[in-house]
């Protein structure tokens, strides 16, 4: 074969490779919407495992036959990074789901989202929980459709077996005593813990901030002290799984509660839908109920913390008007009812929605559970600011050290303040 021919073949092959490479980089061809329909794209995480998205999309498509919703599915753990990368690359996904308010403040602050005050104004603002978190100097760049908050899950059978009353109106001291009382060594030698505190810092820090009006990005953390003493006391008396073990074994809070290894568990409302689903699927037979979070004093208001999830319109959206219409629907009563049906707590809270919620199959119907569902005050889990992400990282690291007993509570709190002030606040 002549060399020219060889070169020609090589070039052709290279060109071919290059071209397929480009085609690959551009991603699969966009699926065509059915004739005459608008194809609205929405970024979501873990589509299969987060049924609220399908509930919303199906509901909206049924109400608006001319719209075809296409989820852009992203791995839950990579969600914020992936969305950041997409936005930086000029992606035209129409609706962006704001997984938490810290990310929201970053996107909004960087001008990646459209202002949607017109949408927010048409909503039932007074009953839309968590809306305040999206207020950036009077401008809204997202509207919440879901508001999770923390309450106390408890195992009714274990309570009955120990002969104690349901955990209504607990103070933290009563809660500690109760947890110790409920801790038993099972017949098979396995410990049943009185409670389970998951390894997240919010379990200790966010509730302390909510009930003491503390500022988690302020740099002074004295208000954490009582909560840490409670958490460490529980751990020391063996009434909860030790933090180091939970962390190194990557203990799942679901397993702890669903297999009856913990009699109580402070956790967010997002767990309700997975718990009812697990029960429906026969994966657990735990007889559970809900109670309000323990408080500093008995008889007062119930204060807890939570965080909203919201939809926003991408600055580069291909279909801005349709995107706004979808958000208006999702944050309104129709959207709220659609996700209530599967046990997800909507941001819109009125009687009609709560009724729809408690009609859900498998939900406890006792009065205490219903009361737990209407806390008097729900503080934001973490304040919204451009300093939130960096502060969160430091608080997490120091939380670890206090919980594994490497630092005393006082030293840990001092160190948090020192590091936040020097590394984040620049003092």
């Amino acid at each position, binding site marked *: 074969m002549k060399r020219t021919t060889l070169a020609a073949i090589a070039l052709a092959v290279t060109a071919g490779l290059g071209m397929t490479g480009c085609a690959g980089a551009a991603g699969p061809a966009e699926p065509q919407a059915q004739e005459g329909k608008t194809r609205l794209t929405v970024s979501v995480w873990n589509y299969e495992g987060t049924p609220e998205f399908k509930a919303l999309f199906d509901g909206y498509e049924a109400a608006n036959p001319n719209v075809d919703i296409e989820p852009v599915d992203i791995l839950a753990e990579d969600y914020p990074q992936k969305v950041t990368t997409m936005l930086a690359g000029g992606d035209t996904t129409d609706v962006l789901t704001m997984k938490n308010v810290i990310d929201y403040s*970053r996107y909004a602050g960087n001008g990646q989202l459209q202002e949607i005050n017109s949408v927010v104004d048409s909503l039932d603002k007074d009953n839309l929980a968590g809306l305040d978190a999206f207020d950036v100097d009077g401008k809204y760049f997202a509207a919440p459709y879901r508001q999770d908050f923390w309450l106390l899950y408890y195992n009714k059978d274990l309570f009955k077996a120990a002969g104690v009353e349901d955990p209504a109106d607990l103070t933290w001291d009563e809660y500690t005593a109760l947890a110790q009382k409920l801790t038993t060594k099972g017949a098979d030698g396995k410990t049943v813990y009185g409670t389970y505190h998951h390894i997240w810092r919010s379990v200790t820090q966010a509730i302390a901030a909510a009930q003491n009006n503390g500022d988690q990005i302020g740099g002074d953390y004295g208000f954490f002290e009582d909560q840490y003493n409670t958490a460490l006391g529980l751990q020391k008396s063996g009434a909860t799984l030790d933090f180091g073990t939970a962390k190194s074994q990557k203990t799942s809070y679901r397993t702890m509660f669903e297999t009856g290894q913990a009699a109580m568990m402070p956790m967010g409302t997002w767990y309700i839908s997975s718990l009812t689903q697990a029960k429906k699927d026969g994966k657990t037979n735990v007889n559970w109920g809900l109670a309000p979070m323990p408080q500093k004093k008995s008889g007062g208001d119930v204060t807890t913390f939570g965080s909203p999830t919201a939809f926003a319109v991408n600055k580069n959206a291909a279909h801005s008007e349709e995107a706004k219409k979808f958000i208006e629907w999702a944050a309104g009563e129709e959207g709220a009812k659609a996700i209530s049906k599967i046990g997800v707590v909507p941001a819109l809270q009125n009687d009609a929605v709560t009724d729809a919620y408690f009609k859900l199959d498998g939900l406890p119907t006792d009065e205490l559970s219903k009361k737990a569902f209407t806390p008097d005050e729900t503080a934001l889990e973490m304040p919204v600011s451009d300093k939130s992400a960096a502060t969160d990282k430091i608080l997490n*690291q120091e939380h670890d050290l206090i919980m594994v007993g490497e630092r005393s509570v006082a030293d840990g709190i001092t160190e948090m303040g020192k590091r936040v002030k020097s590394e984040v606040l620049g003092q």
Partner: protein
Amino acid sequence: MTAETLKRAPAVHSRGNRKQARRNTLIGWTFILPNFLGFLAFTLIPVLAAFALSFMEWTSFSAPRWVGLANFQRMVQSDTFWVALRNTVLYALGHVPLTMALALVLALLLNRKLKGIGFFRVAIFFPYITSLVAVAVVWNMLFSPDSGPINQFLHAVGIANAPGWTSSSDWAMPAVIITSVWRDMGYYMILYLAGLQAIPTELYEAAEVDGASPWQRFWNVTLPSLRPTTFFVVVMLTVSSFKVFDLIVVMTNGGPGRATTVLSQLIYQEGIGEGKFGYSSAISLVLFVIVLTVTVLQFKLQQRRER
């Protein structure tokens, strides 16, 4: 092809020849083009961009802004940077010598003709081809302070105060090092095995005739003959130690506190996590300079020894 080209070679300046040379070059370029394009797009350009970005402030949303040495100034003042640098060096100091020594010992043990030796070689190599995430998760369970088999064993042999491993700031780094040594030693053992088998048996025979003891044979024949392999192993190990990321992220995620936070993880946190791409590029530039310096030093030492 070469013979043909040589025969035609004399008329250096002839037009036909120049054409031929150009054609040859073109063919050469064509062959490396696919690989080079990939290298250009995914390695060279990003590296140069990172170099430039380390003097800028860039959140990935807006245009980069020139800030001069501000990123480096911030880095030097940041406590976390020094913690991460110290941890990275500690990890390298533990990981490089331990892996090298164990790999050599294993290679010596397995460098013999024995029935079933292949099985043992494969067994030692296995961790290297196991998914790193699986390795990290399983070792985490082994290291569990209360219920983990390692501490249960330590209790059984009478050590009352067994270390807290990944839940203790003092022991988290040793735990990570042990895991990484276990994982990597099989790979470097294979390299040493290849090196051992390249040593001519005549050398050993001659040494034996001269009355050298096994220890002397190892010291004066095996080790010097393995020098090129050792050099390669040290360079590869050092580079990979400074780059360590995945194992630490899965095992401890830099904790407890900052006890196992390493530079590459800090780069990830600052850049991808918090969107400070300028600052994280500055840290990666420092990491690059460190790795480059260490590698150049090793090359210099090797050259001096060879002289």
